[in-house]
Every structure is written in C-alpha cells, then in structure tokens.
C-alpha cells in the first residue's frame, strides 16, 4: 500500500493531529504527498467530516512552525557544519552566491515557495537560515505564503470534493513543472548570456 493511501487513511480516521504532524514534517523537508492531503482535507470539510476553520488554522500553524524549525536549525545550528563542509568540497563560492541571492530575492522567494513552487519550500527555509535572512521579514512572507497555500489547496479540495485523487495528482505534477520551468529559464538565460558575450568578443 502506498504512502499516500496510508497518510489519507490516517487523516480520515484521526483527523487534525495527522494533518498537523504530516504538514510539520513536510515543511522540514521529508517528502509526503502533502498537496493531495490538503485537497483531501478540503473535501472532508465539504462532506461535513472536518471543520473549515479548524483545518485552516491547524494546517497553517503546522506549516509555519515547520518552516521556523528548519530556518532556526539552519541559522543557529547549520552554519558551522555548512561552512566546514563547503570548504572541504570546495563549493564555498557557490554557497556565498546562494546567500547573496537569498538576501536579494529572499522575500519573493520565500513567498512563492510557500504556495506556488512548494517543492522548493524546504530548501528556501534552509537557505534563508544559512543566509541569516532577517527573521521578522521571514515571518511576514512565511505567514502570508503559508496561509495562502492552505486556503488555496483546501479551497480546491472543497470545490472538487469528489475528485480528490485526480486533483491531488495533477497539482503534485504541476508543482514539479513549476520547478522545472524556473530552472529551465535560469539555465537558458546563462546560455544566451554566454553566446551574446562571445558574439561581441568574436
């Protein structure tokens, strides 16, 4: 039996504690079928088996708490480990660039990775912690993004309450399409830049 079946069965039987626990561990970076679970929760709300305000509150609190755990661990615990590791494998420069990027694009990066490009969420948490992104700004973007994510996915589940499996799978795939499109754009831009510079030189 797949992990999806187990998680959704547990959600149906035990309700909110499962919702809380699964979202918490997902925010820290353990992969679970989280979009499907939120859509399922929306469907259970529509069927009268869960309460809307409870689902939204519990899911948002769990997500925000999980993000802060990852951010806090990376900021206060991970720094030394990452520094030592990056020096040993010679990627110090890359880490510095990532930090600079996070400082510059941090806000929108945090916000978008909460609800649109959810697959990147755990990485952005860690990057923000390592880059010592200001905590107050992190909280604001995080809260806005996570609440939007929860309301959006639960809302989709509520509207398509009898098509949970299909919608969850489509959303799960689309998240990775978003990640792919962004990386494609970055790599494509690098290639275009290289070709342009060399045209000018040559």
């Amino acid at each position: 039996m797949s992990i999806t079946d187990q998680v959704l069965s547990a959600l149906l039987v035990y309700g909110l504690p499962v919702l809380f626990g699964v979202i918490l561990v997902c925010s820290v970076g353990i992969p679970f079928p989280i979009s499907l679970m939120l859509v399922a929760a929306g469907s259970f709300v529509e069927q009268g088996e869960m309460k809307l305000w409870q689902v939204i509150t519990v899911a948002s609190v769990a997500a925000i708490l999980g993000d802060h755990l990852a951010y806090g661990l990376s900021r206060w615990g991970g720094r030394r480990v990452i520094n030592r590791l990056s020096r040993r494998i010679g990627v110090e420069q890359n880490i510095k660039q990532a930090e600079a990027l996070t400082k510059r694009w941090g806000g929108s990066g945090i916000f978008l990775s909460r609800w649109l490009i959810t697959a990147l969420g755990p990485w952005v948490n860690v990057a923000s912690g390592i880059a010592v992104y200001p905590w107050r700004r992190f909280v604001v973007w995080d809260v806005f993004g996570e609440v939007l994510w929860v309301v959006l996915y639960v809302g989709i589940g509520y509207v398509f309450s009898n098509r949970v499996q299909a919608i969850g799978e489509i959303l799960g795939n689309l998240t990775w399409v978003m990640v792919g499109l962004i990386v494609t754009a970055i790599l494509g831009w690098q290639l275009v830049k290289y070709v342009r510079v060399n045209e000018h030189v040559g």
Partner: protein
Amino acid sequence: MKRFGLQQWLVVLAFVLVVSFTGIFALRAVRRAVYWHRHQDETIRPWMSLGYIARSYGVPPWVLYQALGLPPKAGGPDRRPIREIAREQHRSVEEVIGILQDAIVHARPPYPPPGPPPHLEREPTQGRSP
C-alpha cells in the same frame, strides 16, 4: 565566435535534462487531466471511505454498505477507509474494491435505479416527502 567549453556543454546537458524533466511532469499532469475529463470516476483507492466512493460515483451509500454486508450505522456514516473495513472482514483491499465496483455497476444505468435504503422503507420519514 568562441566555441563552447566543457562548462558550457555541461550547462547545455543540464538544460536538456531539465527540459525533459519538466516535459515528463507536464505530460503526466495533462494525461491525468484528460483521463479525468473522459472518465468522470475516480479510481477506488484504499484510503477512501464508503461515503466518499458513493459520492464520487453518484450512487446511494447504502448500496455499498449492503454489498459489503455492513449494517447501516446508527451514529451517522461510517468514516473508516476501506482498508480498515477490509482488515476487519479478513479480505484483501483488492477484493473489497472488486465487490464495490460490482455493486456500483449494478446501481447505475442500464440497471434500474436502486431506490431508497431498505431500512427507510420500514420507517418512512414524516411529512418530508412532497
């Protein structure tokens, strides 16, 4: 123009890989959406409750309860996922899904509509019917 060095070729390779990765997931999403559009029914999964399956397939829930030999619950609908029901009845989940699919087929056209639940026939509700 200068030729591509090793680093540029690596970027090209990464670009191709990422485009393929994106394409595969886009294709899966589209395929799922098309499947959904053509077949309105969800595939029955072990996590689903009888209420959810009945709703998704547009059949009265009692048809599914009856097919599995379950009595109608006094305290509201049975919220258990079918994997729990299967465990309780010492059946495999696949077997339970098979029974449900069979019951669903017989509760839909061209078969006649299943009508009201049997226990309601004995105790009709008062003053509600038009």
